[in-house]
């Protein structure tokens, strides 16, 4: 029986279940199949805050959202069109994330009285009208999976565990996803464990066939491939892209990559990924604490490595003194901050971009350093290369800002040619027969990078103020002022060495500029596209360098009657822009541990334009 296929331009699917239900894996596999089809896509995993929240409770719900489309999209979607809920808790936690009239695919087997209660419902939501207005499909996923895997020779527990593959099969059918990608992957993953492999394949096929054959689903959907620039693509998340960007920087500079870090959510992924690539000569050290990680990296920087330490906000607080030491030592070092919701421990698994002022000013004394930020998952790759380029060229610590949202989410990425990547020249100091001056400067005001082991360049550096040129300790008043101004001028001068800020203003007559940085890029692009579709003229610009700003930033923000800066913080970039350029930039702020939704920003744009 062949069924109706309906074309859709974009779809948002959300998989939700208990932490143990394998929803991240399901989402990840669905993403791969979607990417291979050539749809544009964006994903967002939503982990529970507690590692072992009680099963079946709302706290233990783990979800994965993907938006895919036949045209360019930039966010994982505000509201889901389809929610797959593996248990009542998942339904309870995520129903408000489904748009009105959306499709709910529920694992009927799990809606027992006990589970319904555990989820915090007082009555069965399948019966009491809670789901009125949605298209509800009740599918006994667990029992069909158990039946499909009979005779394979695995226990009931293990066969039940394959129900996520049933869900994947069903949703794959619904959206015409190819089955080979998943089957190939299953073979790679479980090929050596025959029974587990057989069970997963059986469950996946059962789900697919269930869609095809039952009367339950009247139609399936088709989302055409998005037009893409020719090239080879892959799907990539921000954490992997950042790790690979650092490896690329190591390859392009010839400097061994040296990563020291202390486990912290959500930056640990970086440590995990880099630890896997020792054949690139990558040294990874899990230090005893955040402060040690920074110091071990700084010691390695002194010794001529591409030294990196990665963490999240709480770790930046702890590393602050060492970062200041790197500033006065003028050694190249990258400090990655995968931002999360604060203050203090805050919400470790939730996103925020509230460390901008911390990166900018979070050290005692005048302690300037360059700040680079990534705006999308794939952009973490280029941002890492750029941070390395600046650190090495200017012999300075660089803070690289990412956040939970981009670290965890993914998008298709045209894989770059290695030769096209920028090359980085370390230019270590060599003896020239004269007395070595460790604090002499080149035309960019960078001091020589003289590494231990080099004859003729023996010198001492430290946290005490240096004398200009010789680098000897100096408490001289005029020298301190000179050195303070030199350190500032060096960082300011980087502005001449970075791309100008680009404005996108198709009509050329916008009166509003939406200025952003970091992971709100996707939201801004989507919201502005909608506003333009409504006939409004809006310009956008996005900052990748937060310190120093590109040289034309002032000119741009002054050119528009109104400037709106959306941020997942209380207006930190807005504060910097207002202070620096004396423009009346307005802040649109959201601090819920969630990305800003395109719809919310679209309303704000309309409001600002209409006021």
């Amino acid at each position, binding site marked *: 029986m062949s069924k109706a296929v309906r074309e859709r331009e974009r779809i948002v699917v959300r998989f939700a279940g208990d932490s143990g239900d394998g929803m991240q894996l399901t989402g990840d596999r669905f993403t791969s199949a979607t990417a291979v089809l050539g749809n544009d896509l964006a994903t967002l995993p939503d982990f529970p805050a507690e590692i072992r929240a009680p099963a079946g409770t709302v706290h233990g719900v783990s979800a994965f959202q993907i938006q895919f489309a036949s045209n360019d999209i930039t966010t994982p979607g505000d509201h889901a069109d389809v929610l797959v809920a593996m248990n009542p808790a998942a339904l309870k936690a995520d129903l408000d994330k489904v748009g009105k009239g959306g499709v709910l695919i529920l694992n009927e087997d799990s809606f027992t009285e006990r589970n319904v209660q555990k989820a915090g419902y007082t009555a069965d939501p399948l019966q009491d009208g809670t789901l009125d207005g949605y298209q509800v499909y009740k599918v006994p996923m667990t029992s069909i999976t158990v039946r499909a895997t009979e005779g394979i020779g695995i226990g009931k527990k293990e066969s039940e565990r394959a129900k996520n593959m049933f869900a994947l099969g069903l949703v794959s059918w619904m959206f015409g996803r190819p089955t080979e990608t998943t089957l190939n992957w299953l073979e790679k993953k479980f090929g050596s464990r025959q029974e587990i492999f057989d069970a997963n394949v059986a469950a996946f096929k059962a789900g697919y066939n269930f869609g095809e054959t039952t009367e339950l689903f009247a139609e399936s959907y088709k989302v055409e491939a998005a037009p893409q*620039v*020719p090239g080879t693509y892959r799907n990539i998340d921000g954490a992997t892209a950042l790790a690979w960007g650092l490896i690329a920087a190591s390859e392009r500079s010839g400097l061994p990559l040296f990563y020291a870090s202390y486990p912290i959510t959500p930056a640990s992924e970086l440590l995990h990924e880099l630890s896997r690539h020792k054949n*690139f000569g990558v040294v990874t050290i899990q230090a005893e604490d955040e402060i040690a990680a920074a*110091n*071990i990296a700084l010691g390695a920087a002194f010794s001529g490595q591409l030294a990196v330490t990665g963490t999240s906000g709480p770790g930046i607080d702890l590393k602050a003194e060492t970062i200041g*030491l790197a500033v006065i030592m003028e050694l190249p070092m990258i400090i990655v901050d995968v931002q999360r919701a604060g203050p203090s421990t805050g919400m470790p698994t939730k996103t925020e971009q509230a460390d901008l002022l911390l990166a900018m000013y979070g050290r005692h004394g005048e302690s300037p350093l360059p700040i680079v930020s990534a705006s999308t998952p794939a952009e973490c790759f280029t941002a890492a290369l750029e941070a390395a380029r600046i650190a090495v060229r200017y012999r300075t610590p660089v803070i690289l800002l990412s956040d939970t949202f981009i670290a965890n989410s993914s998008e298709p990425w045209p894989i770059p040619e290695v030769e096209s990547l920028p090359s980085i020249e370390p230019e270590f100091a060599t003896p020239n027969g004269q007395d070595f001056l460790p604090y002499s400067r080149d035309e960019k005001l960078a001091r020589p990078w003289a590494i231990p082991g080099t004859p003729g360049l023996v010198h001492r550096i430290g*946290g005490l103020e240096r004398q200009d040129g010789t680098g000897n300790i100096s408490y001289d008043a005029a020298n301190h002022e000179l050195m303070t101004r030199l350190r500032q001028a060096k960082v300011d001068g980087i502005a001449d060495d970075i791309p100008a800020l680009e404005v996108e203003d198709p009509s050329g007559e916008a009166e509003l500029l939406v200025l952003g940085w970091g992971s709100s890029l996707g939201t801004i692009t989507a919201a502005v596209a909608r506003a333009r579709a409504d006939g409004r003229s809006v310009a956008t610009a996005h900052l990748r360098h937060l310190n120093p700003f590109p040289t034309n930033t002032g000119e741009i923000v002054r050119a528009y009657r109104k400037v709106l800066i959306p941020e997942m913080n209380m207006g930190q970039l807005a504060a910097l822009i207002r202070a620096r350029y004396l423009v009346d930039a307005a802040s649109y702020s959201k601090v819920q541990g969630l990305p800003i939704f395109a719809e919310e920003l679209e309303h704000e744009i309309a409001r600002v334009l209409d006021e």
Partner: protein
Amino acid sequence: MSDVIENGGTSRGDASTLTKKEFTSDQEPRWCPGCGDYAILSAVQAFMPELGIEPHKTVFVSGIGCSGRFTYYMDTYGMHGIHGRAPALATGIAVAAPELSVWVVTGDGDGLSIGGNHLIHALRRNVDIKILLFNNQIYGLTKGQYSPTSEEGKVTKSTPFGSVDHPFNPIALALGVEATFVARTVDNDRQHLTEVLRRAAQHKGTAFVEIYQNCNVFNDGAFDLLRDKAQGKHNQIRLEHGEPIVFDEGNRCVRVGENGRYEIAPTAETDPDGIVVHDAHGRPSLAFALAHLSRGPDEPSCIGVFHEVERPVYGQAIQHQLQAAKERLGAGDLDALLHVGDTWTVE
């Protein structure tokens, strides 16, 4: 990254024309006149040429405190870090550049208080660094507060009614975290100090050397019982591996007392077979017992090498892993990495 080197110790070669002068920087030391740090500096500068390692292959790393200045007076590469973090900085250097001879100079406040965590983890890992801890039992640079090694009841600016803190026993601490080389010496005994430095330099892995150092301004005389020539000869218990532990010109010895405790006893009243023979290469508990013979330097105390064993060196283990990964997976290929997993091509 340099090639794996099998020799983890810092003592390499002897043919050398190096002299003390090559290790002496043009910076004038600025410790208080009479400070024990001068004697240590002079001993270290005089000793370094013996290693046959050129100054440019040597790195001194220090933290904050009077001892922190040490780095500036050595004409080697040097890093004067922030308070307490020298072992971490040195770990980065030693792992990145295993061919260098890396030394850490720290104090009782820097190394045992604010930097305690880094010290114990460096010792645990057995990084190839040599740690000299100048113990003066006081905060000197901040002008006289009690330190984590100050004795109970110590009256200082911050403890006008006497300290109620129980002090660390640095040797016992190092042994407790399974340091592979643990020794103690005194600032003014050039010969003993040099011999301990020599042994430390030869050791593969982390060497921990506690140096009793007199702060003549804020804690003068804290170690007189051991430092003073006249008193020292009665109260220093010199440890020599394989030798019976006898001191006080042969008059006293260390023997196993009740419950297996080590105790000091008159030699004349002790069965010669009952005198403890020092075993530096044995279980750390033996050395631990020696570390607890005295409550502190105001009682007869051991000096010398307490413990010296071999364990894999941290940086070498890291280098071996890199090597093994290259052999197993082939040298990293960036293009292949970027294409790993599912890809698709748009024509």
